[in-house]
């Protein structure tokens, strides 16, 4: 058990080191940092002084070490484009992305689990077949297309919901939230459906197949024999057993949600981290790209580690099997 945790922790740290190395190489060798910072009229001498000040003449290992230490202190340098500290830019954009992610996950679970249970209980019914076809389409269509279609129907044709931005936001202790105004809440609807749809279909299919697998088992039959109501059996007994894989998959999907938030944020002009990253890619703003890369990697690695550990505590078979290779 301890060795399992230790090996997973080591793996996570190794991944982070690789990612920081990539980010460092990106930061240091794609384009010249000095040229990006100064204007055309700066003399060669001034450039050389700046180079010395920034420590760009030190050996590579020293520079890498300094880069990692700074990253640990959340110092990611200054954006080439905005001339602003990258960490401040990210901190400003973080609430928008996190709120969007949160609402999407709630949407995905809130609809995915009940729909999965229903279509698992009645796999041959018309409704569950319709849901399966819809989910196949949902999985196949690119995210940005779903977003555009939603905008076309609900903003352009019907005029019900806003199609861009966060609406009015309220600032609470440095955190700008869209949860407290009606325009903020309305603005959340379309982007979070766009972002959560893929996860919703995934959860629905997973719950469906788990339920279908669990229903013929003995303990469900026994529960029926005891005369428990259908609702208790379906949602208490059957659903509870499907929760372990659902938790795992949902946890691992949070990474993809963050990745796809780049697309959703672009479609809806949502002022979050994804849009920031995309603008950085378009403008070749290396410090922002490097910082985003490290942040995302950190999130991924942490989530994976947490899911691994959760799995071990929930499922004793993994603990008994010892350390997997």
């Amino acid at each position: 058990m301890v060795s399992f945790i230790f090996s997973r922790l080591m793996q996570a740290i190794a991944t982070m080191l690789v990612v920081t190395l990539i980010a460092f190489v990106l930061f240091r060798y794609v384009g010249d940092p000095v040229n990006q910072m100064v204007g055309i009229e700066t003399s060669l001498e001034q450039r050389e002084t700046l180079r010395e000040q920034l420590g760009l003449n030190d050996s590579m290992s020293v520079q890498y070490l300094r880069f990692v230490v700074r990253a640990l202190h959340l110092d990611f340098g200054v954006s080439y484009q905005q001339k602003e500290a990258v960490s401040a830019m990210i901190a400003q954009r973080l609430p928008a992305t996190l709120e969007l992610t949160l609402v999407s996950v709630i949407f995905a679970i809130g609809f995915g689990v009940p729909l999965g249970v229903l279509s698992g209980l009645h796999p041959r019914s018309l409704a569950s077949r319709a849901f399966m076809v819809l989910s196949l389409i949902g999985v196949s269509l690119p995210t940005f297309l779903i977003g555009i279609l939603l905008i076309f129907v609900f903003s352009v044709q019907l005029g019900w919901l806003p199609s861009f931005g966060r609406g009015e936001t309220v600032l609470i202790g440095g955190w700008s939230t869209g949860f407290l105004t009606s325009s903020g809440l309305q603005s959340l609807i379309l982007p979070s459906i766009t972002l959560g749809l893929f996860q919703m279909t995934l959860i629905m299919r997973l719950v469906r197949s788990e339920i279908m697998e669990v229903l013929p088992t003995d303990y469900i039959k026994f529960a029926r024999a005891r005369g428990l109501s259908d609702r208790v059996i379906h949602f208490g007994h059957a659903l509870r057993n499907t929760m372990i894989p659902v938790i795992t998959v949902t946890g691992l999907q949070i990474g993809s949600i963050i990745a796809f938030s780049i697309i959703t944020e672009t479609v809806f002009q949502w002022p979050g981290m994804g849009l920031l990253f995309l603008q950085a890619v378009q403008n070749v703003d290396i410090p922002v790209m490097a910082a985003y890369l490290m942040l995302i990697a950190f999130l991924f690695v942490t989530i994976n580690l947490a899911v691994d550990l959760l799995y071990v505590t929930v499922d004793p078979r993994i603990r008994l099997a010892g350390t997997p290779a």
Partner: protein
Amino acid sequence: MSEASADFWKRVADSDLLYSFRRSPGAIIAAVVTLGLGLAALLAPWIAPHDPFDPAGLSILDNFLPPAWEEGGDARFLLGTDDQGRDLLSAMLYGLRISLAVGFASVILAMIVGVWLGLIAGYVGGFADVIIMRVADVQMTFPAILIALLLAGIFRGTAGPGSSDSATMMLLIISISLSFWVQYARTVRGSVLVQASKEYVEAARLIGVSSIGIMVRHILPNVLAPVLVIATINLALAIIIEATLSFLGVGVPSGRPSLGTLIRIGNDYLFSGEWWITLFPGVLLGVLALSVNLFGDWLRDALNPKLA
């Protein structure tokens, strides 16, 4: 038709694969649609009613014409025109061509890289195996679209804005394929580990066949089924990733619009009522991705290989 080829066709007609294909209407529809779209893309220069990239044939007066059946539509432009007066149907056919070309190219490149790395990792083993599989592990943690986007960004940074269209295209194909190689490598490595200990490989080695010869002639044919399945499923993914990157403005160069580029252009006019510029390419992209996906799903169920 010679004896041997007649024999071959009889074997094809009797195969389980064809039997399963005949019995699943979804797969047949998907295959027919995919093939039809592929043909349309291939023949685009001949069947497109206009040449959308010939500036002499364009008239700015024709811009924003709605589809022919709508009020104000023009019979010359069946699906309407875009902001520059290009015939949308022709632009879509050419866009389909580029989307499919980029998709196929990146899948093939990923396949070559992944299969070779998998063969090396499995057959050579040792240090090479550790390195290749560790890199694969790290990369598996991140979604393909994120990796492709990041690589596209890095390439833009190193290549500079002045690089040529074909260079941008090459870099795009490389970024998509680099996000895909892991699955091939893992699957091939797994099969190689199984095959390498079998007697026929031992025998081949004893009679002096070289390592490369064993890998290519004896082991590779045994791993083709899973590789084919992965390639089909990845084709749909590659098309989607290309469209997404182009939609985000970091994909194909603007001189050669793919379906994703057309959707991006049209997206700017969605609110002013010119819905056709976005929706027609969007529907075409959706149909393409869906049919390739369905076909891949069927192929996976029919061949039922072990995928890593």
